[in-house]
């Protein structure tokens, strides 16, 4: 079977035109160009209508996705001197670790740009008589609309994508950092300006920004410490050295700083409190990008900057990291049982999923790392899917408060309902859908961690994580019971529109494909994992 896949891949590769490093131009160029054009267009007194902006942005994201696909297949290496005095080069070097995330980013980009932006509006009034229905309550518009600042909105989306792609592609630590930082301001604008007007969006945006900037600063410290020790900022060289040029104390310190920084971004348990706020406030596309791309930067950073670079330091911290990850799983799942805001609930479930990812990482085994990488991508897909659904529902309902009375989604919006069921099922680790393999892999790895990890602790973590898995089902059931099932059909809300359907289909199919054939992804990451831990 894998032989067939390999052949298929070879055939596909033969079909792809060999553009070499020009792929990068295709992948990054449209984003940059379109972002600039959109920004300029938004400045005009009479900006173009939403159709033009929306389509332009989608075309840019689509083109870029094509380019990313080309990059993923061709894997060209670009090396150019950038800041010679610091020894920093502009090097783009995709590998088994980054390719899945690149593709995920491109996909998330297409989805995010495809979704319509709607002007924030007040929550729909609740029917006075709860038993009765309120046929006059307005049905919200879910198609494209002329929203003020739409051009800037799309430009911000594209810049976020650009930054994330750069970070994932970067073969140089400083370049990675630049990419990491590039996403912050547009994301901030997205939340602060286009977020839910009913909540404190400025506060949430600022919270996001400050937390992630503290995180970035710590990452920068770590990067610089390693850079001064090794005398280079080349990530491949760092990984090759395996921390040889750092003493144990330095490794511990660097690992601590980097892990705290990246843990804030990921986010890992006690540093997670910003995430639900931001998710609850961000516009749907922002949530999609945040979940599918930005959080990935944290875990990617851990795998890229910590695991191979300061192995000794990482090994020392990994029991703590794993413990925090596991705590996060249970913690977030418990909160999900009582959370009243649906969007926040989904955000909490993200925390739980990333707990599994962190647990896998911390085990230090190939199985764990593979599972973590898989779980990472799977979480990106699933939470993007869920945020598309939940964001859509929130717009339709006027708020995501579960305490409000509303029509059963299954009755009034079956397409959204199906996507919700799929997403929640995947989120609770239903096998055959993507998340399962990451979770079970993490558990397997945690039960038999690497030789230098305390086995007893990790087994305990595995037990707790398994319990967390059961809690995930509990909150899934809760959501489906409260949102999906039921007999109310008023106030009516429209079902998924074309853009949502397309996005949901795209994500749903991928969730399913990855769940059914996990080897597709595991095969891509395996060489990298072997290279890191097989030494």
């Amino acid at each position, binding site marked *: *079977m894998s032989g067939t896949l390999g052949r298929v891949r070879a055939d596909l590769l033969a079909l792809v035109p060999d553009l070499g490093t020009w792929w990068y131009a295709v992948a990054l160029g449209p984003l940059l160009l379109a972002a600039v054009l959109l920004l300029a267009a938004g400045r005009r007194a009479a900006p173009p209508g939403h159709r033009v902006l929306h389509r332009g942005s989608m075309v840019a994201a689509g083109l870029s996705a094509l380019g990313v696909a080309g990059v993923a297949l061709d894997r060209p290496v670009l090396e150019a001197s950038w800041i010679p005095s610091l020894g920093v080069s502009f090097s783009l070097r995709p590998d088994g670790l980054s390719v899945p995330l690149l593709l995920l980013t491109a996909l998330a980009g297409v989805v995010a740009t495809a979704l319509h932006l709607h002007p924030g509006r007040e929550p729909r009034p609740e029917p006075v008589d709860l038993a009765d229905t309120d046929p006059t309550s307005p049905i919200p518009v879910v198609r494209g609309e002329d929203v003020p600042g739409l051009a800037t909105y799309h430009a911000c989306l594209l810049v976020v994508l650009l930054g994330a792609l750069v970070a994932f592609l970067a073969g140089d630590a400083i370049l990675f950092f630049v990419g990491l930082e590039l996403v912050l301001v547009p994301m901030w604008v997205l939340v602060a300006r286009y977020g839910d007007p009913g909540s404190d969006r400025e506060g949430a945006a600022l919270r996001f920004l400050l937390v992630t900037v503290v995180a970035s600063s710590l990452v920068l410290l770590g990067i610089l410490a390693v850079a001064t020790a090794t005398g280079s900022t080349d990530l491949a060289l760092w990984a090759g050295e395996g921390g040889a040029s750092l003493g144990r104390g330095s490794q511990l310190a660097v690992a601590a700083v980097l892990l705290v920084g990246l843990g804030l971004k990921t986010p890992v348990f006690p540093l997670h409190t910003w995430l639900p706020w931001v998710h609850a406030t961000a516009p749907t596309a922002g949530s999609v990008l945040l979940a599918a791309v930005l959080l990935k930067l944290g875990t990617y950073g851990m795998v890229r900057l910590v695991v191979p670079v300061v192995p000794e330091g990482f090994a020392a911290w990994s029991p703590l990291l794993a413990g925090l990850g596991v705590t996060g799983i249970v913690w977030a799942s*418990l909160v999900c049982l009582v959370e009243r805001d649906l969007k926040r609930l989904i955000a909490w479930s993200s925390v739980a999923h990333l707990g599994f990812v962190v647990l896998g990482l911390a085990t230090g085994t190939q199985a764990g790392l593979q599972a973590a990488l898989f779980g990472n991508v799977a979480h990106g897909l699933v939470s993007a899917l869920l945020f598309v659904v939940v964001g859509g529902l929130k717009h339709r309902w006027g708020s995501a408060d579960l305490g409000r009375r509303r029509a*059963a989604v*299954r009755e009034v919006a079956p397409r959204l309902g199906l996507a919700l069921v799929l997403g929640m099922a995947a989120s609770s680790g239903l096998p055959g859908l993507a998340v399962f393999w990451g979770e*079970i892999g993490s558990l397997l790895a945690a039960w038999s961690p690497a030789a230098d990890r305390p086995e007893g602790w990790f087994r305990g973590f595995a037990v707790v994580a398994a319990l967390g898995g059961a809690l995930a089902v*509990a909150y899934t*059931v809760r959501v489906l019971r409260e949102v999906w099932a*039921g*007999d109310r059909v008023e106030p009516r809300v429209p079902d998924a529109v074309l853009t949502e359907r397309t996005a949901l289909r795209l994500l749903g199919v991928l969730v399913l494909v990855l769940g059914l054939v996990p080897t597709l992804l595991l*095969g891509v990451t395996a060489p990298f994992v072997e290279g890191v831990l097989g030494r």
Partner: protein
Amino acid sequence: MPDLPDVTWSDLQLPSLPLPHLPAPDLWGSPAHWAILATLLAALAGLGLTGRSNRLAAWVGVGGALLAFLATCWQLYTLTQIEGARRGAGTIGALPLGDLDAPLRLLVTWPLAIVAVTVAAVALVVQGYARWYLWYDPRYRPFAATVSLFTSAMLLVVLSDDLLLTLVGWEVMGWCSYLLVGHQSTRSAATRAASKALLVTRTADVGFVLGLLVLVAGAGTTRTTDVVRHWAEAGPSPALTAAMVLLVVGVAGKSALFPFQDWLPDAMEGPTPASALIHAATMVAAGTVVLAQLFPLLSVSGPARLLLAVLACVTMVGAAVLAFAQGDLKRLLAWSTVSQVALMLAVLAAATMGTGPDAALQHLVAHAWFKALLFLTTGWLGVLVGGTAMALMASGARRYRVLRHRFGWGLLALAGVPPFVGFFSKEAILGTAEAGTAATGGGFVPVLVLASVGATAPLTAAYCMRAWLVLSRPTAAQGHARLYEPDPVERIDDFFDEPQVVQEAEGVERAEAAISSSARMGTSALMLMTLFGGVVLLLPVWGPQAHVDLQLMAATLLLMVVSALLVRLAAGGVRTRDAAARIPAGVSLAAERGLHADLAYRVVVVTPVLALARAVAWFDAEVLDSWVRGAGVGSRLLGRVGDLTSPRRATPALALVLAGMLALAALGVVTA
């Protein structure tokens, strides 16, 4: 009692027939692939591609099941052509997980192949039946797809040679049961029951997953045969015991053993085809399949066996008693399922390596036939009379002659009356348990199992008798019965019709009065299997068997007859001929509510967990988050303080300068 000769099972078995050696070309993978893929693809296609057409969805669902059935039959045939009758097959390729070997392979052996055929057959019947049963249901399409998926998952469990694949099938079934039970999501009872089913089974699955982790971690592979070999070679160890105990807990959840039993009767909220599928051949029986696959490990870990035996025996007897007291036929069948599945598991606990686990699988197969038949027939009658409560069902078998044999044969098989299929499987179980007793010299577990089985048999007979008495009660006005008899049911051609929304009312009416040919055919097939399925159990392909103790058999049959007569006697004075009416009302009510297990769940698990969740949420918002909020507020406050205290006069500024200088200088001198 006269001295009866000893008979071993092999004496009863059919002679091995020489089958012609025909070429067995395997096109594109093995039949196992086909069986699983056909149903899986049917599920996906049913969800994604059928659009709004119920007819297409029906074709897809039934077609998938048919294909799976054919594939499993073909698989039986191919097994006869293979030396050793074991056949492995790969799936999606090994997972590249570094040191951990995860080949994800399938394996077919004779017993499992027969189980697979049974599963596929029941699924096929259920699909055909569902098309009729949900004729006017706007959600027929997702239902059909879910049934397909469910079938696929069960087949995967049955055919899997990899613990991961087993887990996949295991969990998917749990989810599908959620969707099927909660099919009528507008009814809160259905949603509640579905949630409960999923939650209870998934909670127990934590044990399953952990047990699996232990096994896999020890063996370094997920391949079941290798795991079994590894641990069997290693011999009994605490780790193995722990793993098996955990697995037993997981199985207990899925199979509704005590203390997880309560979800199953509630799951009757689902549509009847779903009940038939879940409770006859698939999910609840999956534990039996898995433990049978791991039987060598179970047999060497005493505590796990003990646990399994105790749980199963308690459940077996208790459920049989509760079944008797139910006021709803479907719930009676549900409790009966609980009891019967416990029977299968109990025999696994009692069996030794000498006898092997096949008696459990035999009972699984037998149970699949008759329980599916009973459920589907009950559903049919339910449609005709508008509910499944005993009061509504009364005289059903008299009013509708077409149902009479279906009910009668099904109940006879359930009670284990010869020559029905249940008789053979029960005898196999009794024999195996007795063999276990003999092998261990009267060990606690086999004795317990033997005693419980012995006790369950008459109890089963009793509730079967009760049901039959109610169903076959002479109708109050025989004239009415005549009215139905000339043309008992109308038929509809469901595979070529499409219910129209505008004709919904008419459709309902028709469906109430009519049965489709496919549904009728399916139940007929099941009926036949109930009668002749014993032949399958007598095939020479089953593993080493215990001998049959004719004395025991006779004693059991005698007990059954006695209990049936007692029930008849008890029913005598009751107008409805319902023996359960003799039970005090309070007891009866408690029994119908599953002895308030719900309350226990809520007190023991749900309330504490929710309280913990609230505490956690509060802590998170008020304490953990405070550092973020505090950072914001604090820095602004500090800034304000700094702004207000920053000198705006020259002299204080100079003081700051000089004091700063002094401090710095002192610092410099100290650190120099």
